[in-house]
């Protein structure tokens, strides 16, 4: 038994301060992403959620350029981008994705510019990679307070509008008839999404930001029938995937002769996808009638 535990948890795992920080930040981010992610998947906004990651990255490169703190850039431009998407976007799904695509294209163009300007000032190399991929193991404990505050803001906003948002997601017309300010509620949601994605892109990188925003919620939605449960299960899936990924990444350092760890993003994404596929199997067991999504979403 001891041997098994030793094999699973390589030496120094529980003691490592890096692991503690990664687990804490990862856990918090996983929870925020799961909560906003459930609404994101329900509203068919996966593209928007992903796009905001790249928009935040543009903000990050801008912050790098002018010497601002990265948080301001990531979250700041994320909010601007989300507001733009909401204003340009129209109710119909396709037109909304186009608006998202256009905002995304502009943001990427800006990233190109900022990175170029940064490189001409001769400061950082590998900046594009850093911004695009990021790494949970390179964040420091100083980010924890910021992450916690932003997470609280995003969660609070969602908690405030969760019921009108649900009603509006189900049917905007019925919601309007009941007096729900559908546009406003949608905007509040987008801003919460911007904060959530901005903070996750900053803390754990762009890949994981999208993975944790979409994967665990999508899996949870397939196996639950109540929103409260969906959110809870999504959080569980997200945190579990994050912690398992951290563990495996830590262990991978000891695998093979090269002593080179595989990036944590790889393992977390693998865990997320495994969860999603398993949830899909479970769902299909319960209800064999295949639902044809066709053009949906």
């Amino acid at each position, binding site marked *: 038994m001891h041997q098994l535990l030793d094999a699973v948890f390589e030496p120094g795992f529980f003691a490592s301060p890096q692991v503690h920080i990664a687990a804490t930040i990862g856990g918090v981010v996983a929870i925020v992403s799961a909560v906003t992610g459930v609404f994101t*998947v*329900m509203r068919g906004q996966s593209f928007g959620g992903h796009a905001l990651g790249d928009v935040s990255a543009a903000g990050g490169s801008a912050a790098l350029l002018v010497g601002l703190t990265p948080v301001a850039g990531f979250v700041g431009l994320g909010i601007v981008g989300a507001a733009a998407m909401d204003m340009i976007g129209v109710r119909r799904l396709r037109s909304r994705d186009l608006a998202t695509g256009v905002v995304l294209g502009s943001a990427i163009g800006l990233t190109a510019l900022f990175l170029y300007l940064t490189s001409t000032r001769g400061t950082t190399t590998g900046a594009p990679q850093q911004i695009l991929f990021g790494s949970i193991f390179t964040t420091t404990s100083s980010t924890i307070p910021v992450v916690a505050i932003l997470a609280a803001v995003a969660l609070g906003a969602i*908690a*405030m*509008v*969760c*019921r*009108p948002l*649900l*009603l509006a*997601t*189900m*049917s905007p*017309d*019925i*919601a*309007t*008839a*009941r*007096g*729900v*300010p559908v546009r406003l509620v949608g905007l509040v949601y987008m801003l919460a999404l911007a904060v959530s994605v901005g903070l996750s892109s900053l803390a754990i990188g762009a890949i994981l930001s999208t993975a944790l925003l979409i994967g665990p919620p999508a899996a949870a*939605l*397939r196996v*639950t*029938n*109540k*929103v409260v*449960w*969906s959110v809870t299960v999504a959080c569980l899936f997200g945190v579990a995937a994050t912690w398992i990924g951290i563990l495996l990444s830590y262990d991978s350092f000891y695998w093979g002769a090269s002593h080179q760890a595989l990036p944590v993003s790889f393992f977390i994404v693998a865990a997320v996808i495994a969860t999603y596929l398993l949830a899909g199997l479970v769902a299909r067991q319960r*209800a064999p009638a295949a*639902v044809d999504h066709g053009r*949906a979403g």
Partner: protein
Amino acid sequence: MAEDTIISGPGSPVLDVEGVSVTLSGREILDKVSFQIRAGEFTGLIGPNGAGKTTLLRVVLGLQRPGGGQVSVVGRTGSPRQQPIGYVPQKVLLDPDLPMRARDLIALGADGSRYGLRLPSRQRNEAVREMLHAVDADLFADARVGNLSGGEQQRVLLAQALISRPRLLLLDEPLANLDLRSGQEIVSLLARIAREQQIAILLSAHEMNPLLPVLDRIVYLAGGRAASGTTSEVITTERLSALYGHHVEVLRVNGRVLVVAGDPVGGAAAAAGPAAGAG
């Protein structure tokens, strides 16, 4: 839910549509449509497909601003409507991914416009149980809404609209996709609700025969214009011909009404607009 103080007296209309005109993409859909509905009146909005029934309902809901005229709900104009209106749309494509059981959707009808997290409430659960029973949805109360049939979804949506105790209830073509028996059940249910709870109900349909026995009033829409009154006042050859702009005959056959266009002598008679329901 707290009731707003209502300035208008008991006799004043719940819904007052005055001279509403709507032009869309260059086409005049509605032309100075006027009618009133009082509390407890079960009113049918009848007209052929494309006559503008959905547009009119959208104007009443505040989703579409009219080019002319105004709408007041419980004495108040202005959009968005301050007074909640119960609304059952024609086709709500309930996303199969939506994690909601029928019971949850109805509960959302009760407090979906409230902000903040929802606290458990026995009162609300009771109300939901009542509603489920009222629309005969007990059997599938715990099924995912996305998996329900069209008729079942409609009943759940009706319950969701009713649980908020609206003064005005709008239904867009609820009978279109129902078989005859379900349609009759819904219609009698609605008539009873209108009477008992003094709710003003406006229901749009393109076939009026299933509704004639229970309707208090009728708003007949054709050619963008409307005629309103009791069924015997409106469904006459003279009034409908004026509405359509050409001669139509109103025939009463076996207790059913048939509106027929064309010259009775010579030329082919073709059924125009709402035709007789089968059986």
